[in-house]
């Protein structure tokens, strides 16, 4: 019986036949397939919890930490334990070196979206998903402090460094990319620990409260514009400039999406038209009785500081 089955399925009843399947190959293959099945079953039964090396913040604590420490937020959108892809990505994030870097340079916030389990997502989770275009989960987004907690229309499609598993078939294929992207995000925002202390307020408020003693400082930037990113990072990351702005101006930030062929909000359109903005980045100091002072492009830290001091005087 065994010999017959062996001949039927393995094509050989004796090793000296030329159509015999090598036994070593059969044994190795069977062992590997068995091991694979066991591992698969084990993973399904015991969805392994990654070691928690990242100190996740709550939403409120994250907001406080971002404004206090001027660190960028790192949002990790996940479906929780029911999503193997999310668990794999989190497992990669929890690697010792990556987790250390995240804890040191970012304010990490895990956003759990329970919608795949048929549960409605909380409102704040829906807002975060909408603001940061996190429709494909898992996703990781880095948000610079200047862009945290600003109205959703300002953030609409703003180019934020993000990562999601590109290969939908191989969720682990991006595992070696994650540290790289975390690093490049940090490079994009050169040194999060030394990002000044500019507290942006809404443009309408800045214009309403502006006086000759404390004029409004409007920063017009364009999304997907490297020059604007550099000004945000280099100029407003300078502690000296940030201190001058804090003391003498009411800073407001206006983002246009012209480069993406997407309509700006009505408020942004009004601001662009009112100040006749044609070039980006553009700094404007405006007060009720004095003429507007304009500085376009990246002038450098020293020149920008001079501009601010002259504009205030």
């Amino acid at each position: 019986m065994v010999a017959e089955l062996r001949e039927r399925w393995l094509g050989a009843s004796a090793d000296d036949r030329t159509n015999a399947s090598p036994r070593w190959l059969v044994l190795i293959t069977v062992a590997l397939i068995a091991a694979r099945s066991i591992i698969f079953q084990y993973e399904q039964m015991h969805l392994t919890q990654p070691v928690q090396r990242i100190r996740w913040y709550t939403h409120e604590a994250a907001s406080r930490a971002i404004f206090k420490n001027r660190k960028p937020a790192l949002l990790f959108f996940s479906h929780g334990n029911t999503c193997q892809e999310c668990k794999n990505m989190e497992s990669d994030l929890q690697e010792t070196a990556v987790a250390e870097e995240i804890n040191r340079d970012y304010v990490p916030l895990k956003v759990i979206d329970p919608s795949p389990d048929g549960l409605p997502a909380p409102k704040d989770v829906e807002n975060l998903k909408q603001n940061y275009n996190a429709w494909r989960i898992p996703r990781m987004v880095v948000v610079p402090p200047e862009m945290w907690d600003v109205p959703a229309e300002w953030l609409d499609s703003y180019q934020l460094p993000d990562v999601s598993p590109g290969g939908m078939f191989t969720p682990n294929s991006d595992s070696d990319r994650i540290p790289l992207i975390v690093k490049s995000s940090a490079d994009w925002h050169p040194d999060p620990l030394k990002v000044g202390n500019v507290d942006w307020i809404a443009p309408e408020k800045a214009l309403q409260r502006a006086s000759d003693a404390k004029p409004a400082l409007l920063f017009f930037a364009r999304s997907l514009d490297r020059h604007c990113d550099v000004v945000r990072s280099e100029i407003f990351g300078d502690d000296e400039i940030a201190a001058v702005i804090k003391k003498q101006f009411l800073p407001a930030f206006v983002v246009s999406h012209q480069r993406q062929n997407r309509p700006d909000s009505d408020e942004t359109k009004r601001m662009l038209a009112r100040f006749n903005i044609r070039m980006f980045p553009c700094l404007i100091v405006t007060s009720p009785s004095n003429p507007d002072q304009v500085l376009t492009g990246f002038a450098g830290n020293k020149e920008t500081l001079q501009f601010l001091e002259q504009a205030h005087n």
Partner: protein
Amino acid sequence: MRITWLQWMRSPARLGFVFYLTCVLPIGVALMTFNSASHELGLAEATFVALGLNLVLGAGIICREREDGVIATVLSRPIRRSTYVLAKWLALALASWAGTLLFIALQCLIFYFSYWHPIDLLLILKATAECAFLAFGLAATMVALSSWAPSYGDLVLYGVAWVFLMMISSFVEVLETIPIAPNSLMTLFRPAAASLHHLSEALFAILMPMVNLPIAHGLWLHTLIMYMSNLFGALLFAIWWLNRKEITYGG
């Protein structure tokens, strides 16, 4: 009748494609991807070269020989069919890997003489090892398909499998993306989506047996076992299927 590699390589189309993959492509890729600011080495394209070489060199590797009777001549000597299949696999894997190494070497040479910039040895080793994984894994898949399909059916099967994979994946994507109200009938599709997701992952691992290095901590055993089981499974299938076939002249 095709007998030797030399004769096989005399096909102008194949020779041209192999020349393109190993010589023209590296220069083109070098010119396209070299960035003077970042000094990036375009090694990611090496996997595409390994894939292309495997498909070009492996098309009809067994089935064509079965069709034109070469295999009958070879097996008229006391050679085990398993030895024949394993030799085909090894030859295909080594040939495509060698072509990829040539590509990588050319890339490095062009990069070095363009910028006189030191090349990161670890990057080269990583690309070399990843291409070896792909070359040996894909060669096993091609040999398995070739032992089963007639004529150039292995190439057709490979393409059809990709189309099937795309169909499953797009279906899974739709199921996972559409909003599903709690307690609705649509929630029944969730398990189906999960099963199809696993199926698409398994199929992709067979069609594109890649191992990305370094393998993340905690996943290396799983990844290697998956890769090796696919490779050995494909080889065993090829041998088993060929053992069952009656080999005659004229297919």
